[in-house]
């Protein structure tokens, strides 16, 4: 008896809640409509196109056609450059962030490093390519300086700015600062007490890193490295301004395909884009997942 009497107002309240939720949804409608029209539907258009042939029938042929030497090598060079710049950027960025946070350096180092990282991580694209051409190009300051001061001809060693290592070295200019920016809060989360406690208990520095610091830091470190990977993988402008179309990486191939259908098959172009989404999707999806794990220690 009492239960039914209680249930009635509860039900009314529940119904009112459903009503207000439906009304509340109207408030977020513009956002979801925007995301639908300018993010999700355009991407879906390409994904659907990748699984259709010109006649409009479903097919896996476009994806199978990706496995031809030029396309595979484009993906492979992209993956190599992105991985090299992500891993190197991750390691160097970690050492810089760690040195600034707990290296015992003067207090002005840290804000200077963070401010500069904020700028440098946004200084990408075409101006960055110009800067590296002026530094390490054939007429660049460092190239000329090494030649005149030490008689060391950089380009005779086989180095070329318009190559794998040249592109990686250039990408590091925005990769390292991004790592510094994201990892500094995580390193701040390493409490001084943990180190002191481990020392009092007789742990060596190696043991401290092996059993305390790295287990706390690795989700952020690995996650951010994956973010850097995707960041480099999707980059177009730097590589395009640096190498023109002389370097066969997948973003430049897709750029040429969008401009002028160089593959002579629009649906193969869609498949090329879908392959890129798969790679950055897995990479960034893992990053987002790892970030939520890493944040547990920052509270």
């Amino acid at each position, binding site marked *: 008896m009492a239960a039914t009497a209680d249930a009635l107002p509860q039900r009314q309240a529940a119904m009112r809640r459903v009503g207000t939720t439906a009304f509340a949804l109207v408030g977020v409608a513009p956002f979801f409509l925007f995301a639908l029209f300018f993010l999700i539907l355009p991407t879906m258009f390409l994904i659907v196109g990748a699984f259709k042939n010109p006649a409009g029938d479903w097919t896996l042929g476009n994806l199978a056609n990706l496995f031809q030497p030029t396309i595979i090598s484009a993906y492979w060079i992209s993956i190599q450059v992105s991985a090299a710049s992500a891993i190197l950027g991750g390691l160097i960025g970690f050492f810089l962030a760690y040195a600034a946070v707990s*290296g015992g350096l003067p207090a002005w180092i840290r804000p200077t490093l963070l401010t500069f990282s904020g700028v440098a991580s946004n200084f990408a694209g075409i101006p960055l390519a110009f800067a590296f051409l002026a530094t390490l190009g054939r007429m660049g300051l460092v190239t000329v300086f090494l030649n005149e001061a030490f008689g060391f001809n950089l380009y005779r060693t086989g180095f070329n700015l318009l190559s794998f290592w040249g592109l990686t070295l250039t990408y590091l200019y925005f990769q390292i600062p991004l790592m510094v920016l994201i990892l500094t809060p995580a390193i701040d989360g390493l409490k001084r007490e943990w180190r002191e406690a481990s020392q009092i208990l007789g742990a060596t520095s190696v043991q401290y890193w092996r059993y305390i610091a790295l287990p706390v830091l690795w989700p952020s470190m690995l996650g951010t490295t994956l973010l850097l990977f995707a960041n480099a993988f999707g980059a177009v*402008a730097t590589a395009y301004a640096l190498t023109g179309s002389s370097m066969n990486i997948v973003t430049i191939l897709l750029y040429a395909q969008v*401009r002028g259908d160089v593959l002579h098959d629009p649906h193969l172009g869609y498949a090329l884009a879908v392959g890129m989404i798969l790679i950055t999707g897995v990479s960034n999806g893992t990053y987002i997942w790892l970030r939520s794990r890493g944040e547990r220690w920052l509270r």
Partner: protein
Amino acid sequence: MKQSTFGPWLAMIIGGLYFLVPLLATFEFSLRMKRGEYSFEAYRVVFADPGFQASFSYSVALALATIVLGVLLVVPTAYWIHLKLPKLKPLVEFVTLLPLVIPAIVIVFGYLRMYNSSSILPLTNSARGTDLLLAFGYVTLALPYMYRAVDTGLRAIDVRTLTEAAESLGAGWPTVLFRVIFPNVRVAILSGAFVTFAIVMGEFTFASLLNRPAFGPYLQLIGANRAYEPAALAIIAFLVTWACMGLMQVIGQGARMVSRKR
């Protein structure tokens, strides 16, 4: 136990060299346009170029439009999510992170397929329509940064109390939103706006593939045809980025100091 600072100093010095040498080299290179002497000739040539003026002001206008559209889209949404629909928060956050997952070149490829002249919504038929599409595209690119900034700002204030106080004084929702919430998160909005500005000014892929005369495609054109002007332009672009990030920090610190004084 005193920690040795040799390793950290070494890391900082090597890092510092890697980051400063390209800037110095670019600056030095940009001064060499006149043979045998240093001069600002390259900068003079760049500033006098009508193409520079047109593309730079086009990108500034586009950046401002992007900021206005982005703020009008993100602030009400983030506010509404905080106030009424906290359950939707993970979904909205996921959507705002999507532009990091889908490369920009893929997004613009989709636009060209979806909004071309033979589609239902042929935005690319007219220059104005393409400008609008480009601005929407930039709102998308800036979404992760803008949303994160505004979300952090809203977390720092008591959204519910402010709303209820305003409503009990008779304010309608436009008043609540524009005269109560906006002023309270203006620091967050500004920091999102500066990041957006920096992104739009340097962007190449969208503008180039949508064929609009923005600063990015202009840079590419100069880079392919000139020797000293690109270095000067790189320095100018670096200063623009530096100004955006510097202003962002100053505003953030100013706000922190004000709140500490309170």
